[in-house]
């Protein structure tokens, strides 16, 4: 069979602690953008974020993790979502077949490191967090919690990370290196990223307005999402329900600037083109596009140009970062869950806060819930370093 089967998904974002909650929020236009309450930052009064209103201790309690642990917020969110995905797919014995985990993160343990960086030298009681800083440890926490012993790795390519993880997972299944793989990503809010994006002057002080002429920048968010991918042999043997098929994927590099995207959207164009070729689809076959749509002046212009280069008629498209904020490494996987929901429920989701088209072209995002038959969804994720990844999800 063409493509790779998705048999489960799990998610946590500022608009819901489950797939169902996220879905309802999307339908009800319920944004997760708010003022910072858990994260303490100097900039709290002039930024808005997509914050999950659960403290780390609460997340640990939900997961049954003992109080004396060295989980960072990123690994707590990741564990939460990955566990949900496993349960959704009805998996009880994790190692009964060759199972792996490809997780993605950019923040990793920085949310804790930034709190204790200087304090570590004077306070032995917090040193348990030192080795939780790096990306590999974040993934290890998830793998160990779930009991995964096989192939485990971490991708870190900034905002395209979890989309790339999904792509790699699909390749591992297709090449029969694994029978089952959990793929996705996680990132928590941190002062590091807030200050980083603030220094680039691309944070908005109000709710983000993707693809709007008057867009002022992004709202950072946090979250995690994972998909379960399984081989067709496993799907047949277990009569597993298939939620969607990953039919296309493509990665390319813009090679223009470390942070900005090229004015022609070259990297995006190439990634989308590759994903279409992989899926053996024409642009006309795409029913709906989940844009990266961060609401920065640069991204939306560049991405819009890329869409116009690919599609003679751009299909309906949405930017769900208007709900969740930009969840960095988790963004690709979160959008994957929303793309699969679109396919399952035959619905396109609104883009919030849209008012005026970008003057450079004639592109208007979807602003309402629309019930329509959807067979193929394109989802984009573009990161710093020109890293562009596009995925195509298709109906089973």
């Amino acid at each position, binding site marked *: 069979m063409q493509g790779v089967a998705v048999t489960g998904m799990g998610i946590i974002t500022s608009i819901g602690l489950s797939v169902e909650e996220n879905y309802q929020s999307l339908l009800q236009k319920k944004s997760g953008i708010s003022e910072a309450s858990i994260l303490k930052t100097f900039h709290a009064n002039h930024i808005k974020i997509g914050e999950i209103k659960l403290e780390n201790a609460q997340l640990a309690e939900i997961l049954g993790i003992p109080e004396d642990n060295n989980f960072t917020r990123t690994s707590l969110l990741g564990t939460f979502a990955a566990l949900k995905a496993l349960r959704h797919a009805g998996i009880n014995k994790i190692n009964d077949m060759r199972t792996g985990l490809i997780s993605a993160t950019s923040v990793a343990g920085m949310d804790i490191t930034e709190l204790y960086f200087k304090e570590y030298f004077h306070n032995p009681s917090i040193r348990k967090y*030192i080795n939780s800083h790096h990306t590999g440890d974040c993934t290890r926490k998830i793998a160990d919690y779930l009991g995964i012993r096989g192939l485990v790795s971490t991708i870190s390519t*900034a905002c395209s990370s979890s989309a790339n993880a999904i792509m790699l997972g699909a390749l591992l299944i297709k090449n029969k290196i694994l029978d089952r793989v959990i793929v996705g990503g996680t990132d928590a809010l941190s002062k590091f990223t807030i200050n980083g994006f603030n220094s680039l002057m691309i944070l908005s002080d109000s709710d983000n307005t993707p693809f709007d002429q008057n867009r002022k920048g992004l709202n950072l968010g946090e979250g995690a999402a994972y998909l379960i991918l399984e081989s067709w042999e496993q799907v047949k043997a277990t009569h597993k329900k298939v939620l969607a098929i990953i039919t296309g994927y493509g990665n390319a590099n813009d090679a223009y600037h470390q942070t900005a995207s090229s004015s022609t959207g070259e990297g995006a164009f190439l990634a989308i083109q590759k994903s279409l070729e992989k899926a053996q689809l024409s642009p006309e076959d795409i029913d709906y596009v989940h844009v990266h749509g961060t609401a920065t002046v640069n991204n939306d212009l560049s991405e819009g140009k890329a869409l116009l280069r690919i599609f003679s008629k751009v299909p309906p498209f949405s930017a769900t970062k208007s709900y969740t904020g930009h969840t960095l490494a988790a963004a690709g996987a979160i959008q994957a869950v929303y793309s699969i929901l679109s396919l399952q429920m035959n619905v396109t989701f609104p883009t919030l806060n849209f008012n005026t088209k970008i003057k450079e072209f004639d592109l208007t995002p979807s602003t309402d819930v629309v019930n329509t038959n959807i067979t193929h969804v394109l989802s984009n994720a573009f990161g710093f370093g020109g*890293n562009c990844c596009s995925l195509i999800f298709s109906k089973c």
Partner: protein
Amino acid sequence: MLKDCCYINGIGSVSIQTSAFDMFKDYPVPLQRNNKPVHPSYKEIIPPAMLRRMAPGIKMGIFAALEALRDAEINEPDGIITGTGMGCLLDSEKFLEAMIENKEQHLTPTYFIHSPHNTVAAQIALYLQCKAYNMTYSHGVSSFEAALLDSWLQIQNQFANYILVGGVDESAPIFDALCVLGKTFKNPNDSIDFHNPISDISCRAEGANFFVLSSNKKQSSYARLTDISIYHNPEDDFQKMLDEILTRNQITRKEIDIVFLGYNADVLQQKYFDNYASLFSNTALAFYQHICGSFDTASAYGFRIAAEILRKQIYPQSIRYNDVCPKKIQNVLLINQANGYNHSLVLLQSC
């Protein structure tokens, strides 16, 4: 499973040894507890406007990448894949320090924009104007092996003919001090002994090692990359894991000519490597971290050495861990792990 398709055609390195170091003739500069790379002159190859912003990891990565491409006689790869354990640590540290010192005010973006882990892969792409596949793995000591596996997949599936793949890690003063506190790297009083270690951490170093992998076999190809296995936590099944990769490639343990092990003078890691060594009682065992020092992608240096000896067909004294000499050099197995996790097995063969 994995088939015969992938050749090592180019190698480039920046390490704590000088560029003149020849492991077939010379003994390496002795390892210290904290070791700095011997940096080449970067300004001949990197324009000042780019160079001024680059931390050592990026400079080393670009240099080693260009050297590998030159060695392979190709101008532009159709994929760039890197592995890094800690990413762009120095710029992360500088931004973090500034953020804390200045209480989140007056922060400039340069350090932040170079803090993502994929910066080296991105800067190589920018330098080469290469718009092809670009990926970065960051998973402790199996970061480089994950990059190898992906490279192998790209070539096997005919998505690419030439992949530039590498491992790079740099140090940063405060993070390094934290690693000593967190018991990853040695403090100044710890002893360095690779055979009978007493102290429980390894000798800090940095480096970049890049390779061009290709579906095309050349006269000058170093070796064939035949198979890669990565296991998160095999526990007591490490022997089963080893046998799987051998069976898959129809090789017995006796037919492995040299086993490279990531011995790193850390008493806590010794037993894991000794466990593997005990499965190869009459086999030549080699080690390399006494030459390149320890960092998450140090295994890429081991990969380099293995490739060179497969081409040259000489087993140098400088890397011999035991007294067994191989009768031939055809099948080389590289094994690494850390604390019982992130086991990787890489099979290289002569070509």
